[in-house]
Each structure stands twice: as C-alpha cells, then as structure tokens.
C-alpha cells in the first residue's frame, strides 16, 4: 500500500512537471509570436533615429542608433504638411464616425423594431451592398465627386462613408435582442417613436455603437485607394495616401521613410493603448453579432 502511495505521488509530480513544462512551451510560443507582432514597429522607430550610414551598415550590423537624434523628424516634418495631414485624417474620421453612427442607428432601429411597407425590400438593399466588393462603386463615386467639383476636399474623403450598410446591419443585431416591454413602457409614458428610439433604446445599444465607431474609424484611417484617387493634391491627402507619395519621393532614404511612417501611425497607436479594452472587446462582441 505504501508503495502504491509513493507511486501515485511520483505520478502526480511527473504530471505537475509536465504541466509546468507545457506552460513554459506555451509561453515561449506566444512570446515569440508577440515579438513578431511588435518587431516591425520597433524596427521602424529604431531606424527613424539612425543615420543613413548606420541604417545601411552590414559589417557590423547596427541595431541601435549611436545617437538618438531628432533630425529626420525635423526634416520630414518640414517637408510635409503633417499638421494638415493630421487634420484631414482626423476630420474625415470624425465626420464618418458621427454620420455613420447616426444614420445607421436610425435605420437599424427601424429595421429591428418597426413594421412598415417595403421593409424587406429596403433591407435587401442593405444586404446587397454588403455582399458586393467596394471597388465596384469607386469609379462612379469618383465621377460624382468630380462632377460637383469637390475633389481635394474633406467632403470628398467622407463621401463614400456618408452612410453604412455594414453599420445598419451590425446595429440592427444589437437592437433586435432588446425586450419588447421597454417600448411598451415608453409608449405608456407618452413617448412617441422618435423619443423611444432616442432616449430609451439608443442608450441600450452603447456597446454596439462603440464597436461600430471603432470599425468605422479604423477603416477610414487605413483606407488607401479612395484618398489616393480623389484627393491628389498634397494638402488634401490623408496620412495613408501621403505615405504612398512620400515613399516614391524619398525612394531609398529609409531613416526618413521610417520617420514618416512613425509620424503617420503614432496618434492611432496612442488612442489604441488608451482604449485597448474597448477596442478588443468592441471587436469581439460584434463578431458574434454578424
């Protein structure tokens, strides 16, 4: 009996050891993955502080700049209207988020909670838009902006995002799960449909609004083709489309290119680190809704 007990203890210890070993392996795997995710950004920042000679030195290979000098930042900032680019990008994102949330919430509420003639037909339009690749709209959208002579404006940047089929669909999912009693209670209290929507129902889909806001902002920030096409003048570019031009202008001056890249992405990174929970949770709650 004693022997069996010892054997059991040994087995337990072996299992513990195995568990710990697999724990270490898991961490090693996850850690190497995490390094791969971060490394390009670290390299971007390191290169932006190097001299050209340091960045192209192979023997010895230079990992860290010998001196942390801001000179590339000064040059790149001077050669490009970064304040202008920040403003264009920010204004585009803010207007797209505001209008996208407003119009999508309105339509989503009607599709989720009201009955009206043409509901299925109109919702069919929403679904149809979502299934079609967006490039199919681009030439006619460009021709429209061109026809009203609005190229190289903030309006042009916002134009394709004035309304959002995706947002309507996403928020509809959030509105659908709310209990019917809420509307009935609001009605008894004398709310009309608009008031019920605005004061009772809208606050209850806050997590949906946050998720849609994040999606819309990220999409607008990352979009490259539309600003490249519609706002060709340097003063009307967004951060993304300006980078494309900077890349062809600076060609192989990598420290300056990396500086421009850092200048373009740091505001969004900062916002992400401040609101990382909302970002990640916003995305994950919406995933189950689609």
């Amino acid at each position, binding site marked *: 009996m004693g022997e069996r007990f010892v054997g059991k203890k040994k087995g337990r210890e072996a299992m513990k050891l195995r568990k710990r070993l697999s724990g270490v392996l898991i961490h090693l795997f996850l850690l190497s993955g995490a390094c791969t995710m971060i490394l390009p950004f670290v390299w971007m920042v390191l290169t932006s502080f190097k001299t050209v000679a340091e960045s192209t030195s192979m023997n010895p290979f230079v990992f860290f700049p010998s001196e942390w000098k801001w000179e590339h930042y000064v040059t790149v900032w001077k050669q490009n209207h970064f304040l202008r680019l920040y403003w264009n990008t920010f204004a585009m994102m803010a207007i797209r988020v505001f209008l996208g949330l407003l119009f999508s919430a309105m*339509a989503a509420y009607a599709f989720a909670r009201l009955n009206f003639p043409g509901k299925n037909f109109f919702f069919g339009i929403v679904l149809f838009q979502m299934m079609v690749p967006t490039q199919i709209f681009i030439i006619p959208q460009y021709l429209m902006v061109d026809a009203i002579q609005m190229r190289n404006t903030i309006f042009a940047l916002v134009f394709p995002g004035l309304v959002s089929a995706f947002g309507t669909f996403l928020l509809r999912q959030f509105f659908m799960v709310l209990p019917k009693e809420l509307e009935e209670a609001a009605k008894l209290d004398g709310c009309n449909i608009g008031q019920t929507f605005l004061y009772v129902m809208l606050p209850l889909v806050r997590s949906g609004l946050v998720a849609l806001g994040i999606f819309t902002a990220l999409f607008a*920030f990352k979009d490259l083709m539309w600003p490249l096409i519609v706002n060709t003048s340097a003063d009307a570019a967004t951060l993304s489309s300006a980078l494309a031009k900077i890349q062809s202008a600076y060609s192989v001056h990598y420290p300056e290119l990396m500086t421009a890249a850092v200048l373009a992405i740091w505001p969004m990174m900062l916002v992400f680190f401040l609101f990382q929970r909302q970002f990640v949770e916003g995305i*994950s709650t919406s995933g189950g809704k689609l």
Partner: protein
Amino acid sequence: MAKAVNKVSKRTWNEWIWAWFLIAPTIIGLIVLNIIPIIRTAHMSLFKSGDFGRNHIFVGLDNYVRMVNDPQVWQAVVNTLVYTFLVVPVSIALAMLIAVLLNRPLKGRSIYRTIYFIPMIAAPAAVTMVWRWLYNSNFGLINYLLSLVGIPPVNWTTDPRIAIVSIAIIGIWSIVGYNMVLLLAGLQEIPRDYYEASEIDGAGKVRQFFTITLPLVTPTLFFVMVTTIIQSMQVFDVIYMMIDITNPAYEKTVSLVYLFYNNSFKYSDKGYGSAIVMLLLAIIMVLTVIQIKVQKRWVNYG
C-alpha cells in the same frame, strides 16, 4: 369597413412615417452611393472611355473580349487566388492555435491579446513601408538574421517566385490578431461543463479540441473564413506600396484590384477598369455561393 381601416391606419401610419423617416438617409445614401454606381460600372464596362470618363464610345462586349484574351488579367486572377489561399488557411490556423492557448487561465492573457491586435491598428501604407525595409535584400534585418545561420540573401520583393509569398506574410501578420480576437470570443461561448464532462471520460486535450472545441466554434470559424476570403480577394494596399510597375515581380504579384486601379486611374481606361471589377464581382459571388453551399456540411449550428 372604411372606418375600421381608418382607425387602424392612424397608428400604423404613424409608425410607417417614422420608419421611413428613420431609414431615409441610409436608403437614399445607399441608392446614390452604391446602387446607381453598380449599374453605372456595369454600363461603363460596355464603353471605351476617353479621359476622365468622357467621350464614351459604345463598344459592346469588346472590353470583356479584350479581358478574356489578356494574359495579365488571368495572371492577376491567379495571383489574387494564390494570395488568398496563402493568407486564409495560415492566418486562420495560427489565429485558432493562439485563441485556444489564450482561452484558459494564463498569465498575461490580456497583454498577449492586446499585442497580437496591434498590427490591426496600423495603416497598411506604414506597415508595408517597414516590411519593405525589413525585406530589403542588401540591408534588411531579415536577410541579416538569415545570414547569421548561413542562408544566402533572398530577394524578397523582386524575385517573381517569392514576392507573392512576402506579400502574403504581411497579410497574415496583419490579420492574425483580428481573427484571433473573433475566434477567442467564439471559444468563450462554449460552456465549461462540456470540457469537465469529457475530462471525467478521460479525454485528453487534443481529443477535446477535435470533439468539443472545433465543432462548437464552427459558426465563428465560418464567419472568420468568409470575411478573410472576401478581404483577401480585394488585396491592394500592400501590393501597391511594395511592388511598383517597374518591379520585375510585378506580373507575378499584381492583384485584380491593383490592375483595376492601374487601368482606371493610371491609364484612365475606365471602361476596361470597370470590366475588370465586374470580373472580381463575379469571382467573389461564385466563392460566396460555394461557401454557403459547403457550409451546411461542416458548420454546426447546434
């Protein structure tokens, strides 16, 4: 009878008018911004267009005939599919693996989740610039690290056989965290009892994964797959930033959307560009129909 109709309709009318008012901006916007443009793109694909879409000449199906006989278009279809078939399985498999590892008590779980998500936040234009630098054949970090283990330098961005893989690596790197967050949300919906019950039955971790986790996460997996495929089929930014027309790897990397962009806006041949984007629409539609058909065989809606 007429009276009854009137009585009902006053309240119903109220609801109808509110509903129409609420959907009006979105529906009008969708018609102007999306429905009319689709028709216009289809229409334009039948014309030979002059500068800025003016001076149209009706050419019937000429653009389509030209497209079918254009080896560059077919190469672009192949490139786009190769990219998609690299990015979709690899990114989803990796995302699944990471999600499973994070779906358990683990130190630093939320930190890992945040870090893996970071590439999603950065603009593809900036991301591609730094990857191009990492890939640089003479001074790039990757070739330097490879040289340490004795591997000769690789022309990541200019070798026609390799460039599409280099591009796919960026695509995978960018999307893995996003897919992981979605899959993790799916995993967390699986009730704990299932695992406890199977543990009592003596099932190991690997068996648990294949008998419980995988079948129950298929709805999320399906969603992730559909969105990743559609997104990959529309790849543009990374290729645009990495491969210019003079790059020797251009022919073997140009995607359908990049080709559409070049024809429509670089060469101002909007008729031909429209035909190319109609082809993209057709391919995506076919892929979507196939997925919905095949879905019934493997997606488990419980």
